[in-house]
């Protein structure tokens, strides 16, 4: 249940509250470049969502099994050459940026080839955007966020699993699509307006995006409310006694204490 709540919160957070374009400013180039017509914007959004999911899958897998300090695959390979205790400490995090960018570039290439070969109509509708996507910051940003939630956490137990990572990526892509489609809709109307000449094109798009970002700021705080609503519901259904009594005895807990260095004298 708490896992489901987590997933919902990540999804809402990525798509609306911390929208990739309007909050984190990633993927601005296509947001300004390809938002002239709604159908093109939608095609771009779909392409980004598609690629971002694949990139997230790749980056989660690579980070967890190869790059992370003490990752199983690199530990196993290094185990042949160096003693086991050294192998367990191998940390390839420094390579992560290079690995991610090549994972993205190659997955874009493969997706393009695959789609062109097997789904020509699909390729016609959004294939043209695929090469552009490699340099779209949104994809790399999703990978970096996932990495931050795997490597950057204090306790290994808090590291994101594949489900959470994919949710972030897919709904980040959905958020991108929402933003770019709304923008395209506004710009189609803007064509009919009398805009001062220096502001035509990118400048007015940015100002409109500013107003759009203001509107999206209205979603801030939705997640804490949602979390409260969901947990209280879940708490009621499982009859979980939620913090009612703070003076609970220690018998309630299973204490697993792992001192990091072993110099505590044991009485």
């Amino acid at each position, binding site marked *: 249940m708490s896992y489901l709540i987590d997933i919902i919160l990540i999804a809402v957070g990525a798509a609306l509250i911390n929208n990739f374009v309007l909050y984190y400013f990633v993927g601005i180039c296509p947001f300004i470049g390809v938002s002239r017509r709604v159908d093109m914007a939608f095609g771009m959004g779909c392409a980004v969502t598609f690629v971002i999911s694949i990139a997230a899958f790749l980056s989660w897998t690579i980070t967890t099994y190869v790059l992370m300090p003490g990752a199983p695959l690199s530990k196993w390979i290094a185990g042949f050459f160096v003693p086991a205790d050294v192998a367990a400490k191998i940390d390839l995090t420094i390579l992560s940026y290079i690995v991610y960018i090549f994972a993205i570039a190659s997955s874009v290439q493969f997706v393009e080839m695959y789609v062109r070969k097997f789904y020509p109509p699909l390729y016609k509708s959004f294939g043209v955007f695929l090469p552009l996507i490699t340099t779209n910051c949104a994809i790399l940003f999703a990978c970096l966020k996932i990495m931050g939630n795997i490597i950057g956490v*204090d306790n290994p137990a808090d590291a994101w699993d594949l489900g959470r990572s994919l949710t972030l990526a897919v709904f980040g892509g959905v958020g991108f699509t929402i933003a770019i489609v709304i923008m395209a809709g506004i710009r189609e109307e803007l064509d009919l307006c009398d805009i001062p000449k220096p502001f035509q094109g990118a400048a007015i798009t940015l100002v409109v995006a500013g107003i759009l970002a203001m509107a999206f700021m209205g979603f801030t705080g939705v997640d*804490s409310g949602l979390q409260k609503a969901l947990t209280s519901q879940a708490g009621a259904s499982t009859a*979980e006694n939620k*913090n009612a009594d703070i003076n*609970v005895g220690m018998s309630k807990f299973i204490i697993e*204490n792992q001192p990091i260095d072993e110099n*505590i004298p044991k*009485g």
Partner: protein
Amino acid sequence: MVKQNKIIEPEATGMLKSKKRGYILQAWLVLTLALCFGASLAGVQLTLGPTIEENKINETRQKVPELVLGAEKAQKIEEQGQALFIEPHTISIEKPGKKISYSVYEARLNEELIGWVLKTAGQGYADKIELLLGLDPQAKTITGLFILEQKETPGLGNKIITEAWRKQFINKDTGRQLIVVKKGTKALNEIDAITGATISSRAVTGLVNTAIGDLKGSLVAKASHNQPTKDE
């Protein structure tokens, strides 16, 4: 057909050869570059890696004396040249449906336990709030609060980092749950909300309550567990 093939052949192989050589040259170029870059990255990691690790650890550790002893006393101790002995632990708590892990720092001065610092994080108004909470050895009163990370609204929610607001938590009894009130505190367990940022204030207070509720038992157990060893 056959004749034609024979005529074309030498030329084709020649072209193929030069093309092949081009590819091999390119491959060598990429390989050499990759090697150079790999070596430079390894060098960077070796020289800067320890500093980065230290930065990460120091970020929380530097705050421990102030959180446990209060700013004045912490400075006095530093002037005297004494250093706290800080030991990190991980404490896991099993709750219905999930397992939560906390980082806990044990602070000792001259072999004597003087307090605990807990690190906890949770959803704030805008994004995650990460904070450090200082407790006395018996986990009876709060000795300090520090916000490590927040992205609350500037000018409103981000006032949770101001000392004036954080000060309210000091000397609060952990026996009773802290409550956020809007207009002036009356009871001892009340925290004054920041004007216009009740949600952020509630989020921080809620995090403090949950962390104390989760860890009080095990901290008390650890404190009494460590006590006899000192006498031995």
